[in-house]
């Protein structure tokens, strides 16, 4: 079961705090969307609005074309996978997974059959009779997933589902979540503050900040061509180079930038560390002194203070075969498509 979700001009305030300001978002049926942002950006509030746990101050939520804004969680075609899993400790895994079906009035034999199927889907069919306290964190998380999916929701809401797992398990569970989503076809809306997790798992990332959507789109597009400076920074490490536009030509301390246009005023030029390379290129940052050089396995991370702009520190990820010594000189450059330019407003 799956359905599209339409969020229209949703705002919500907690007392004086504006948690969501006029958020609109369309989510397609069967899509895997992550809401990404720092703590307090409104992503969990938006998920709670979708799940029915919060009545938004303004705006509406449509699921499969029907207005669900004020419908109770029990009556929505959504289920939520909670951050702390919220399993029922006094029930076996089988009863946990079958709980939603029991509420729907399904008979014991039929619901146990579905529960077994769901437990099998998450690889825990052998433990159907055990209680949650006997499980590890990753296993509890799988049970919570099976329980939420057992009622065949149109939309599954996941509230930082991998937050309590260690890094290795988190990466493994990401792949599994994605595979399960592909298999069941349900629309998944997943809240996280980990941009690597978002990129690994999502069809589409929605970057949020201060109650607003900063950017939304496929992971690669958001990473390479972020719509805002916030999205650029949140998606990964970014070099900031002050720039200035006179209306036709953009200039930095390293000279005019070919092929970029911006409205008159101050701006900031952003470039990812891995887009910088040693040697000359379309945009050269000239020679500089290497302050730090560290080997990271898949790349060598260097920090260079360019001679043309001694206030700046440029971070570059060079191929691991290059291991320049700190104190030596290095010329960094980049190619034009790797830039993003954002006006800073004055």
């Amino acid at each position, binding site marked *: 079961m799956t359905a599209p979700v339409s969020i229209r001009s949703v705002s919500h305030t907690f007392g004086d705090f504006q948690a969501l300001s006029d958020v609109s978002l369309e989510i397609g049926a069967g899509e895997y969307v992550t809401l990404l942002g720092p703590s307090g950006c409104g992503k969990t509030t938006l998920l709670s609005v979708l799940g029915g*746990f919060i009545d938004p101050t303004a705006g509406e939520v449509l699921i499969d074309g029907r207005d669900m804004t004020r419908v109770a*969680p029990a009556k929505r075609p*959504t289920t939520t996978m909670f951050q702390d899993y919220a399993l029922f*400790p*006094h029930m076996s895994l089988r009863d946990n997974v079958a*709980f939603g079906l029991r509420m729907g009035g399904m008979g014991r034999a039929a619901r146990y059959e579905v529960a077994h199927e769901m437990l099998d889907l998450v690889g825990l069919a052998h433990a159907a009779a055990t209680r949650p306290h006997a499980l590890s964190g990753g296993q509890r998380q799988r049970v919570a997933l099976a329980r939420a999916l057992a009622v065949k929701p149109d939309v599954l809401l996941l509230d930082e589902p991998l937050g309590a797992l260690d890094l290795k398990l988190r990466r493994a569970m990401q792949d599994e979540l994605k595979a399960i989503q592909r298999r069941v076809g349900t629309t998944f809306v997943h809240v996280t503050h980990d941009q690597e997790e978002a990129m690994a798992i999502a069809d589409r990332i929605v970057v949020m900040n201060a109650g607003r959507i900063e950017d939304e789109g496929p992971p690669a597009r958001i990473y390479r061509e972020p719509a805002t400076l916030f999205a650029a920074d949140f998606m990964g490490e970014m070099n900031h180079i002050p720039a200035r536009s006179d209306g036709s030509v953009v200039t930095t301390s390293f000279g005019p930038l070919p092929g970029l246009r911006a409205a008159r005023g101050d701006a900031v030029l952003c470039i990812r560390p891995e887009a910088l390379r040693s040697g000359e290129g379309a945009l050269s940052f000239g020679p500089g002194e290497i302050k730090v050089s560290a080997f990271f396995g898949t790349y060598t991370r260097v920090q260079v203070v360019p001679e043309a702009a001694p206030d700046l520190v440029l971070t570059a990820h060079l191929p691991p075969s290059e291991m320049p010594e700190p104190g030596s000189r290095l010329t960094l450059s980049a190619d034009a498509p790797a830039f993003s330019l954002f006006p800073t407003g004055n």
Partner: protein
Amino acid sequence: MMRLLPWAYLIVAFVFIYLPVASLVLFSFQDGGLPVPPFEGPSLRWYADILSDGDVMAALGNSLLVAAGSAALACALGFLAAYGLARHVLPGSALIRGLLIAPLTVSYLIVGLGLLIVIQRTGLGLSLMTAGIGHVVINLPLCFAIIYASMGAQQQNAERAARDLGADEFRVITLVTIPMLAPAIAAAFFLSVTLSWDEFIISFLLTRFDVTLPVEIWSMLRSGLSPRLNAIGSLVFLVSVTAVLILEIFVFRKNRS
């Protein structure tokens, strides 16, 4: 020497606590007519005597009835109050909590006298039920405090999940909240049973013809010491110990594992 001192202290403390109980139990097996040294026996004649005494047995039954009934009612009311206060934002909830717990600080004598005046005024008539009401009054704060203290975020999230999966409020409470709180509710129940079982002043003031066991013992005491009283006391003690053991084995043990 310094290592023996704590042990000696421990033994002295336990002797101080349990010597009266031990002597009570010992002289319940007295063969003679007075529960004083020297010990003669052992003999079960006083147990046979009280077990065949209709008044004592009736009082024992009354006590069990009042204890179980008042504990069940106090638990039910305490749970509902705790659930309401823990799950809903109410105006003046701190004050309501305070008022619910305040009766703990009032002496049983005052509670009993107050209830006596009210009951006399309403013309309800004194009975086991009025004694039971008195016990609900003294046990409700305790039940509320125990159950309220064990309502944490974990239950709240599980309740949220149950609601999300389609459970209505009734099924949220019966299938999730109460089972998750079962240890606390059982602890409150058994504690209330033991307190009600031992309680004298309120029962004395609020009963008339049917009396509870402590009141019966008191009226027997007026005709002087007898090993019969020791035998009754031992039985009362046995019931209390049983309740505590049940609590320990089935509630706290399960909770720990």
